[in-house]
């Protein structure tokens, strides 16, 4: 039998339901793995063995009683440490919340519990989800499992790494400007940023409220769809959450790409590293062979994405972080790390009297133009394929002293957040043993289509089989 840590959710679930393995054994194996690699990778802030094993015991009893369960039952899951978890410490990667113990669960965590998933730990991140490398964590940086001297991408660094390193089979993350897609791309895993409003954000520590999306990481596209099937659903607590147009994302995933129109936006490929360009265009060629049609398109306002994002996001950050005053919970404001302080200052400035129109309002107008680019493109094509990152995983420390260079790592990802559209990041190969990912972007609420396209490509390549040597 294959190592159980190397299986997908689909394969593991089959073993559990056919009683070839017990949830408790499975959870135990993943907990041992998580503890074993955490010293090297620092992907978890908290590993919660007790909670996970209790849930696993319940799953074993339900299976023994012949209950019909969700595919996620008994599956070990990691949770980015910005999701509130009742009675489990939730730090947001910041010293401000180092002793904070929530008294309720985030809605998406609640959905996972109801599906009987086993939460093995809270994963490391750039503090408050501010960062593209994982290095802004007040609890030390997470390392890339494919090369320990390199960053795993951020801000959901620990979630991507815990899936890539076999410490769990799925992990929750948040994506405000690329925080799921970038680490997915750097760690050879699949990550989804759903449509804005698809998944309730209740109980997730807010970063930039007009951009924040809840998504997750898995090894395969099908597994990713299984998790979205569980996390969607309106709860009455997030007024931006949209009840309509829900799908069963894991069904019909094998529909294929015949006659599908794929757009290649020229702005994302001009001046792109030739090796990254080659990998992505090879992937597009594979889809073409499967019956898709490829068309060149233009998203003319792409170059304004980062500038727009770095007005809107810090403005909203400064407002959301205003609640941390050390009175009701957490420590006082001087405990904020450098990046949070920098963003609070920038955002307070751009929202301050006399500057609001020049910055925030202007950015919200350009945001309209960026969204219009996508709306127009999706009249011609069904999906857009483009790179996730302009580089492969960079060295730890390489960009920490120059915030602007770090911000520019988000150049290909912020646009989907500004436009609100969903984007699936998935592996498309390796360069010098370092993972490289691509994005499949679709119109609002097209997650099901994105999974079908991603699955078709993945069947041809199966990059997830290339495991890191830790």
């Amino acid at each position, binding site marked *: 039998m294959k190592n159980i840590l190397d299986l997908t959710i689909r394969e593991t679930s089959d073993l559990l339901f056919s009683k070839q393995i017990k949830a408790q054994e499975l959870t135990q194996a993943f907990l041992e793995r998580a503890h074993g690699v955490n010293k090297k990778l620092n992907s978890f802030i908290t590993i919660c063995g007790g909670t996970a094993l209790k849930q696993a015991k319940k799953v074993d009893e339900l299976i023994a009683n012949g209950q019909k369960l969700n595919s996620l039952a008994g599956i070990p899951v990691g949770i980015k440490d910005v999701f509130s978890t009742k009675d489990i410490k939730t730090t947001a990667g910041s010293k401000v919340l180092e*002793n*904070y*113990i929530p*008294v*309720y669960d985030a809605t998406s965590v609640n959905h996972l519990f109801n599906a009987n998933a086993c939460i093995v730990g809270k994963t490391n991140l750039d503090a408050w989800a501010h960062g593209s490398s994982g290095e802004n964590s007040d609890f030390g940086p997470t390392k890339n499992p494919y090369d320990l001297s390199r960053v795993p991408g951020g801000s959901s660094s620990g979630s991507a790494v815990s899936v890539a390193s076999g410490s769990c089979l799925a992990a929750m993350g948040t994506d405000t400007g690329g925080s799921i897609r970038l680490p997915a791309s750097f760690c050879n895993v699949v990550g989804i940023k759903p*449509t*804005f*409003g698809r998944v309730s954000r209740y109980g997730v520590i807010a970063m930039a409220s*007009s951009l924040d999306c809840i998504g997750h990481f898995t090894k395969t596209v099908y597994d990713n769809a299984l998790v979205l099937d569980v996390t969607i659903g309106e709860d*009455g607590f997030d*007024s*931006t959450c*949209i009840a309509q147009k829900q799908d069963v994302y894991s069904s019909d995933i094998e529909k294929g790409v015949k006659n599908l129109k794929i757009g290649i936006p020229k702005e994302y490929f001009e001046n792109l590293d030739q090796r990254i360009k080659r990998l992505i265009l090879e992937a597009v060629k594979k889809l073409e062979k499967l019956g898709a049609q490829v068309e060149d398109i233009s998203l003319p*306002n792409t170059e*304004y994405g980062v*500038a*727009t994002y*770095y*007005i809107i996001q810090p403005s909203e950050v400064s407002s959301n972080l*205003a609640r941390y*005053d*050390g*009175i*009701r*919970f*957490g420590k006082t*404001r*001087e405990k*904020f790390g*450098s990046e949070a*302080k*920098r963003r*609070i*200052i*920038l955002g*307070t*400035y751009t929202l*301050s009297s*006399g*500057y609001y*129109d*020049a*910055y925030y*309002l*202007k*950015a*919200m*107008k*350009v*945001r*309209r*133009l960026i*969204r219009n680019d996508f709306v127009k493109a999706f009249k011609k094509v069904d999906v857009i394929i483009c790179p996730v990152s302009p580089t492969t995983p960079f060295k730890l420390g390489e960009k920490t002293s*120059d*915030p*602007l260079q770090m*911000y520019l790592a988000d150049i290909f990802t912020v646009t989907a957040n500004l*436009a*609100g559209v969903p984007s699936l990041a998935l592996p498309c190969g390796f360069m010098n043993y370092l993972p490289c990912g691509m994005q499949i972007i679709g119109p*609002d609420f097209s997650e099901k289509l994105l999974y079908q396209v991603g699955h078709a490509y993945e069947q041809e390549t199966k990059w997830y089989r290339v495991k890191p040597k830790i």
Partner: protein
Amino acid sequence: MKKPQRPEIDVDYVSKLANLPLSDKEKALFKKQLKDVLTYIAKLNEINTNKVEPIAHIADLVNITRGDETSPSLSQDDALKNTSKTYNGFFEVDAIFEEQ
């Protein structure tokens, strides 16, 4: 509408607005780093947006409301669980106005 000609942040003033204590070292560093960022975002001035409607909400939702009815919520004990200072079952805060 003020158009900042020389983008530079008065960090002293803004840190007071944000109620964010900063060291002198941090102030000097942020001033320099954020000047680079502001210079970069000034890029947006290249675009004429006079006739563009700003995005208010990306999914165009309007007036999302619920009935004004009470429902079970956190207990007083739970609400106070993470604070360091309480008084008679309330949060205790520093006085805002001090007696002369």
